[in-house]
């Protein structure tokens, strides 16, 4: 299409991206649900209702005026738990992404800038080892060593295992930027390494980093759900989407809403962040146009 001065700016391109708009809407819906959902539910997410939560067949009651999304296997309000789970999922996903992006960005920039030196070799070997290690095994080992898992330990585990891929991509981008003429020019003008890194390299790798971070949020939501589903996540009764999915699976025949509710929540959130990420990528990619 167009090139040079005439092409739209990234923000305009992002807003024109259909997928991105859908993504933003989905993410906004999830965030809104996390914020106001707990107020919509008339029950505590932790309290079992052994009177109104049980149906005639002794099973959890289905969606009704009283429990909008039905009751779970402990006769608690599924809606209240879903909303509480949204808060937790978003909190963990965003925080662990912040950790992963920061660590991955710093490591990637340093490694890329000092490519070929011992700094690069050391950092990249750490990344190699980390990427070679089975993620779930690592999480299980950390969980076993800590004796208990809280939101903070999950966050730390996800953050500290999630930066490896980011570091690789940022390193490559840094090497690319470093080879460009304006970097050589500023070095020739006698600018310090820090100044070059902060003024020239970081702004130029920020785009890919932002894309990776957005996608990472989606991956972290899935990772947290997987851990909770496997029973190595946050201890009950705290509701998490992954664990709600696990709790519901025995009831797929008699109470399918217990699978549908958390399943849909996970899909919507992951889809939303992924679409936003794709929109950002297209908007920030100079070759896309």
């Amino acid at each position, binding site marked *: 299409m167009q090139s040079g001065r005439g092409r739209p700016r990234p923000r305009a391109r992002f807003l024109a991206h259909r997928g991105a708009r859908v993504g933003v809407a989905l993410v906004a819906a999830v965030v809104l649900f996390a914020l106001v959902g707990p107020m919509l539910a008339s029950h505590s997410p932790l309290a079992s209702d052994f009177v109104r939560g049980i149906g005639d067949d002794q099973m959890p009651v289905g969606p009704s005026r009283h429990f909008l999304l039905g009751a779970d296997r402990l006769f608690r309000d599924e809606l209240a738990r879903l909303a509480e789970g949204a808060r937790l999922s978003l909190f963990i996903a965003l925080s662990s992404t912040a950790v992963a992006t920061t660590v991955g960005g710093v490591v990637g920039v340093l490694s890329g800038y000092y490519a070929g030196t011992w700094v690069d070799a050391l950092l990249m070997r750490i990344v190699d080892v980390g990427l070679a290690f089975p993620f779930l095994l690592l999480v299980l080992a950390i969980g076993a060593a800590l004796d208990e898992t809280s939101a903070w330990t999950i966050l730390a585990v996800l953050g500290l295992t999630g930066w490896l891929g980011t570091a690789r991509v940022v390193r490559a981008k840094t090497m690319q930027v470093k080879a460009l003429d304006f970097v050589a020019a500023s070095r020739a003008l006698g600018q310090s390494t820090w100044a070059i890194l902060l003024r020239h390299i970081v702004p130029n790798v920020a785009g890919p980093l932002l894309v990776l971070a957005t996608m990472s949020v989606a991956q972290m939501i899935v990772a947290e759900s997987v851990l909770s589903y496997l029973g190595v996540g946050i*201890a009950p009764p705290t509701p998490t989407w992954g664990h709600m999915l696990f709790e519901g699976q025995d009831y797929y025949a008699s109470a399918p809403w217990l699978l549908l509710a958390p399943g849909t929540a996970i899909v919507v959130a*992951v889809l939303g962040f992924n679409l936003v990420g794709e929109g950002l990528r297209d908007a920030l990619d100079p070759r896309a146009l």
Partner: protein
Amino acid sequence: MRSIRARSKVTAAMHTSRVAVALALTCAVGTVALAPGCREPLAAPIAAASPGDALPRSGGTVHFASFADVRSLDPAVASEAFGGSLIAQMYAGLVEYDFDGSVVPDLAERFELSPDGRAYTFHLREGARFHDGDEVTADDVKRSIERALHPSTPNPFASFCENIEGYAAYAGGKADALSGVVVGGRYVVTIRLETPDATFLPILAQYALRPVCKSAGARFEATWAPCGAGPLKLLPGGWERGRSLTLVRHDGYFRAGLPRIDSVTFAFQMPIATQRFKFEQGELDAVKDLNQSDFVQFTSDPRWKAYGEFDAEKEIWGESMNVEHAPFDNIEIRRAVAAAIDRSKYRKLKAGLLHEANQVIPRDVPLYDPNFKGQEESYEAALAHMANAGYAYDPISKKGGYPGVIPYYTYPQSYPEYSGQVLQQQLATIGLRIELRLVSYPAYLALTRRRGRVAISPQGWQADYPDPSDFFEALFHSKSIADEDSNNTSFYKNAKVDDVLDRAHGELETATRARLYGEANRIICDDAPWAFAYASRRYEVHHPYLRGYRTHPVWAYFLRDAWLDRTPVKALAALGLLGAPTAPLGGLR
């Protein structure tokens, strides 16, 4: 060059995310599409081929499956309940449990007890054969018992046999033979005990001491090929570890005409949902690993109701409180917990498969007293006990109570994970705050059975043999306390209880035993080392064509009398009565 590589990595990441999106969408659509399908009613039971009064026929293969796996088929070292049930089909014992739980002669034709109550003499059937064709003699009985109790054999059951005369010397390696087992002729063997013992016969009927073929040798070897004198035998290659076990009819079995089936196949580690679908398709003949939802479907469907049966209720669960660990070193706190629990809530989480329990033994264990009230629920009493303990709690202002948060150790993806959350809600109403700590099952076992480690945890006990002594002594006798791997997980020690239990153990008169266990039950319920919570049982459904098959009070499977009365599968498929043909029938459509 470099920039291209960088670019390709970014795109690779993007592609991965596109795949993820596609997967997510597929999952969402799949979930929505599947859900209504799952709500369809159960398939119909597959009817028997011949009328109700038909004479039993021989032949056919029975198919079972289990969520569990089997680690050993050697009676001397096996420890799991599921594996034990299979072992019991492969090895006949001197005595066996009858369907009412009583002990009756089996390989022995008859037995008698000496007047002093210390010696049992067994008269073996003549002509009973092992799977290898050898006749079962008194020497085999003695050799098998000595093998099972040999000091080098890791027999988890050995401690139950300590009362056999000469056991200490033999197990300690000081004697070459077990002096209490005396051969009195080719078909006569006497077992002498140190003291009269009401638990001896129920323990002997368990699988651990059952006769094994001469190939087993004098001590346990892991490489031995299982061989006994039971109705079903294992052929070479019949056991694929972790996958399946096939047992075939032992033609030399001493009960003429039995077993009726040609063979039986057990599939191991099969997910519960898979079992249910295979059962509905007729690929499994019976299923007992049912989840709550399946259970409700099968029991509420009139077509299936006649073909389901409950197991005996022989497993007790409670909240075990460590009497050496704060705050449960305070008896009033323990009593508060025992009084605060609304046991009907545990039942409602798994309606039909659980009963409220408020005493030491479950209701299908001998000497259970239905009139004994045990630990009773009373919210007022629980609050009063908290006040007595010095931690008065005001439910209106929610002030007071025990100040700390008490970790509650349990394991994930299990019923105790859910019951623990109910307990948490209930204890909060009397001012006790617990916090669930989910650890792996092995870690749960190690931690909760270690002295001084865990304050409170859910604990269950399943009968090793059908007698109250098994529950009382394992859980509450001070001799069951150990620093590691302690069966007495509350580390409860009461000299009076020890004395009553020891007397009951040696008492052969049933009424006196019942009185003694009643006394121990009262003291333990009041001291509350456990807040007894629920007793569980299982439900098994089978197709109508599997006949002569009943649930057994001890063994999970009892196939001696079962027979198959099924229209050949090919005929059913031709009539269109089977759904989609499975792999072996693939060409028939």
